[in-house]
């Protein structure tokens, strides 16, 4: 198998979407049709250049792990294409993919789960050789495995070859996982949080090992992490993911020096600095948590939490109800206004507004006042507060397009603050 690496990116993703079914309880499982889909990855384009370290950074639910698995075709993308070494592998059969697999390997977050408890360390590391016929016989495979174990710092390898994973510490297991990934001499390694489960004093050692091995074997890494500090130290370029979308991507140095997306900025602000003389009490943290990916927010997906949100961000009816609930965390206001609105379950929300079945003039006045005061960012998008029949009050909201990635200062950013540009052509 001669592989004269094609020039250009080693990995290229175009419009990749990956989704998982959400089973609708009993009935769904019976009929076998999911009631909904979670789009874990939703239209991602990116390119990874040979011998660089490309960071995928995001919180839980950002889709970074799924994206990593999609790159390796461990899950099938629902749309888009995945090219490895210039070859479209999106629709290759598992049999055709098999020879390619030795050149693209994963390293997992939990080294304990990544090793078969019923296989010795030696067998685990040698198994890829046997699968790909890279060893002449058992003894050769064992010898190669021992060499690779030695290389990743498991020494003396002879003492470990016949042990089971559970006799190893977390750091040792991760070294074994790395040895198994590298024994077929891959070009691309997708490392998913390779140090997150390790004790902090071990993290540095594993990171150093990964960097050394990269130099030695000329590897390309996709480094998946939630930890911005590690990503900054390790990565050449990064992409920040939020709810399945890339919100900012570019050279790591540029992104860290001057983040252009409010989400990136928030992430950086939230990282606690180990320098007690640099406390940052004025940081503006986003509110709330990552919403449910089954039904992501419209417009910019970050808008409900964004400290800089404004009218075109794509505000929806439910944002307005959430703003009221937040307002009612003051018990006195709650007492005064809750009865006016009535049970929230009766309130109808839609993408474009809210209909309150009761509330009447009092509620309309209140909402008007909140708009004037701009009590919450959602009120910047209110276009009308109208009295309907009876006690009905209707609120209409300005529509907001989903932001497209646009070039800002040497990187791509998807945020309306840099000019309202609508994203188009997204598969839905």
């Amino acid at each position, binding site marked *: 198998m001669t592989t004269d690496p094609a020039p250009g990116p080693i990995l290229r993703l175009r419009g990749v979407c990956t989704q998982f079914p959400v089973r609708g309880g009993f009935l769904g499982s019976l009929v076998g049709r999911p009631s909904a889909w979670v789009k874990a990855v939703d239209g991602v384009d990116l390119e990874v250049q040979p011998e660089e370290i490309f960071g995928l950074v995001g919180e839980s639910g950002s889709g970074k792990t799924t994206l990593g698995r999609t790159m390796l075709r461990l899950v099938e993308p629902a749309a888009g294409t995945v090219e490895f070494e210039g070859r479209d592998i999106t629709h290759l059969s598992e049999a055709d993919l098999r020879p390619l697999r030795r050149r693209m390997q994963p390293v997992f977050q939990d080294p304990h*789960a990544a090793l078969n408890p019923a296989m010795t360390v030696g067998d685990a590391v040698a198994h890829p050789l046997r699968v790909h016929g890279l060893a002449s016989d058992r003894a050769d495979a064992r010898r190669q495995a021992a060499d690779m174990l030695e290389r990743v710092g498991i020494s003396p390898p002879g003492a470990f070859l016949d042990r089971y994973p559970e006799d190893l510490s977390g750091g040792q297991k991760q070294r074994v996982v790395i040895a198994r990934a590298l024994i077929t001499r891959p070009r691309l390694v997708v490392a998913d949080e390779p140090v997150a489960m390790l004790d902090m004093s071990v993290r540095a050692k594993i990171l150093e090992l990964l960097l050394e091995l990269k130099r030695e074997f000329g590897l390309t890494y996709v480094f998946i992490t939630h930890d911005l500090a590690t990503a900054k130290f390790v990565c050449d370029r990064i992409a920040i993911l939020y709810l399945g979308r890339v919100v900012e991507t570019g050279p790591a140095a540029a992104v860290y020096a001057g983040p252009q997306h409010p989400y990136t900025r928030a992430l950086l602000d939230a990282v606690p600095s180990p320098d007690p003389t640099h406390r940052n009490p004025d940081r503006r943290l986003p509110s709330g948590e990552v919403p449910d990916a089954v039904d992501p927010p419209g417009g910019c997906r970050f808008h409900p939490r964004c400290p800089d949100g404004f009218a075109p961000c794509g505000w929806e009816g439910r944002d307005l109800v959430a703003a009221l609930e937040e307002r009612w965390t003051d018990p006195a206001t709650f007492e005064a206004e809750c009865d006016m609105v009535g049970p929230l379950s009766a309130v109808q929300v839609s993408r474009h507004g809210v209909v309150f079945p009761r509330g009447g003039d009092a509620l309309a006045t209140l909402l008007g006042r909140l708009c004037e005061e701009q009590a919450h960012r959602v009120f910047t998008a209110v276009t009308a507060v109208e009295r309907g029949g009876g006690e009905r009050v209707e609120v209409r909201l300005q529509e907001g397009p989903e932001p497209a990635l646009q070039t800002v200062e040497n990187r791509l950013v998807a945020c309306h603050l840099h000019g309202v540009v609508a994203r188009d052509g997204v598969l839905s």
Partner: protein
Amino acid sequence: MNARLVRLRRLWRTTHPTARRLMVAGGVITGLFLLMAVFAPWVAPYGEAQYRGLPQLGRPGADHWFGTTNLRYDVFSRVVFGTRLAFQVVILSTAVAMVIGVPLGLVAGYTGRWVDRVLVLVMDAMYAFPSLLLAIVAAFALAKYVGPGVPAAAISISVIYVPQYFRVVRNHTLAVREETFVEAARAMGAPRRTVVGRYVFFNVVQSVPVIFTVNAADAILTLAALGFLGYGVPIPAAEWGYDISRAIGDVANGFWWTSFFPGAFILLLVTGLTLLGEGINDIINPLLRRRGVGVGAVAPGAVVVERSATVATPELDAATVGGADSEAPPTEAVPLEPTPVDVPAAAAGAPPPPPVPVPVPADVALSVRDLRVTYASARGPVVAVDGVSLDVRRGESVGLVGESGCGKSTLGRGILGILPGGATATGRVVVDGVELSTLSANERRKARGEKVALIFQEPMTRLDPLQRVEDHFVETIQAHRPDVTRREADAMAATALAAMRIPLTRARHYPHEFSGGMRQRIMIALGLVLGPAVVVADEPTTSLDVIVEAQILDILDDLRRQSSMALVLITHNLGIVAQTCDRLAVMYAGHIVEEGAVGPVFSTPRHPYTQGLLASVISLDTERLSSIPGSPPDLLDPPPGCRFAERCPFAMAVCREQVPALAPTDDGSKVACHLYPGADERHSGQRWVPVGRRDDTHDPLLEGALQ
């Protein structure tokens, strides 16, 4: 293979001695029965159907130990041969069930899709049907094709167990299929049959021995029931159930032995098998459970596995799931749930001298003196916290840092006196001027929540899933202030929730309706509702995303600034300490090795361990990676002298001999290191006063509720 045996032996030793004894008893009983079955013709004085010349309904005696029947059988010989028959049927029936059920379960679990759905539906239907009736129906239907005998009985019985093997193997396969190591096998390009064979099957078969023993016990009972109903193995074969059914008439006339002995044999053998099965389950299940599989509670007669698990595949993007791991090979020390072994009452030895009241300054909210917490592990006592003293002033925030396993969490729990069973604590804990060690168990309970609160690491599991959030508050408030009415408690709950910015519209929701960050805020609100003087937060943000972590830390920070609450923040994240704490204490292997204000300790760390920890932090400003070589010592047998000496770049001869004392430095910090003056003072404090010996987990039910 050798490593395997070592592993089983280790698991065997970690089981409770009583459980071990019971398992051995079960094994012995089963073994004796097996021997009796194999050597039946030699053991039994008569053949199974030999009756010429024997007395009719003879009483048990020297000639006929168990008496004779009205058909002149020797009861003892019958029950001995019955053993043989029972084993034949059991082995055959479970073999048949296994051969059908295991592959079906494997296929259904691994392929999923419609094959799985159809099979699950069919098997669930069969499983729901009364098993005895199923066997009867099968025997009844088979009667036309297979003459009555061992094969017919075995096949009828196997029908019951096919769904059981199927369910267990299928659910287990489903779980294993989602394991990372299976994905790793796919990623290395292993063909499907290799993945299923070497990676899935090998792990799934581990659950089979457990089901086997359980089913064997059940099969014996079913065979007897079939025999009793006339659908077992017919005469002249010796079958216990059939013999009992023949003996009903004898009972009415007072001839008890014809029915008693066959039944007693069943009772004994089934008991033996069940004990053995439970033992195997105890040993094997930890292997499975460690990977989150677990066969579920194995109940005799029914292998209970979670109802048809429809495993959706949500993205588990697990951020740092707190679970940290050291470079050291795992030891059995400090098992997650310390195995209670026979620890002598006062592990510390000498009877505690009467407490000497030492005045605590009024501005000190929490004062810990010589706290020592000992866990009982299978290999001996482990001193997880070894003579720790710490003061926290009102409104002060103290960070407690160190690698995992250094005793931070144990110290936190020791302060509250909630330790797992088998743990003992000695020393003094004074909270808000009240010495907890002098309080009665009930008063100490009341102090928890009222004076000192604990906030845990995993907010997702800390709320009772069956209780509404509001009810947690009411319960807590009324436990401490019985005269508060429900209305007032509701109002207090609302205030507490509002302070944590939880929408009041959601006070009556259940815990599972909240996100992780909200649950942690609820837990904080719950901890603070009674206004405690001290809050111990044990890694409160480790399982949360970085932004939510920052939100929670801001809340905690605001709280202690607004009130005079003292905060003990246990964390492994030094950045958090730098940002939110006034002082910090560094723990290593059960000792505090350095303590002081955050500023000086971060700018000029003195202890080499603190220096190493600070250097290994990866922050946005990191330009060079650094780590501490080696790993913390085994606390079962800690080294003499300084516990860090082994890993210390500056270690001297004295370090390996003498424990350094925590001595003050010129800037008000304290450090326990021989590099600095004062370290060679005698290690202080041998006067331990019991704080709370497990009476928190083991008391009032009997005294209170059941008498």
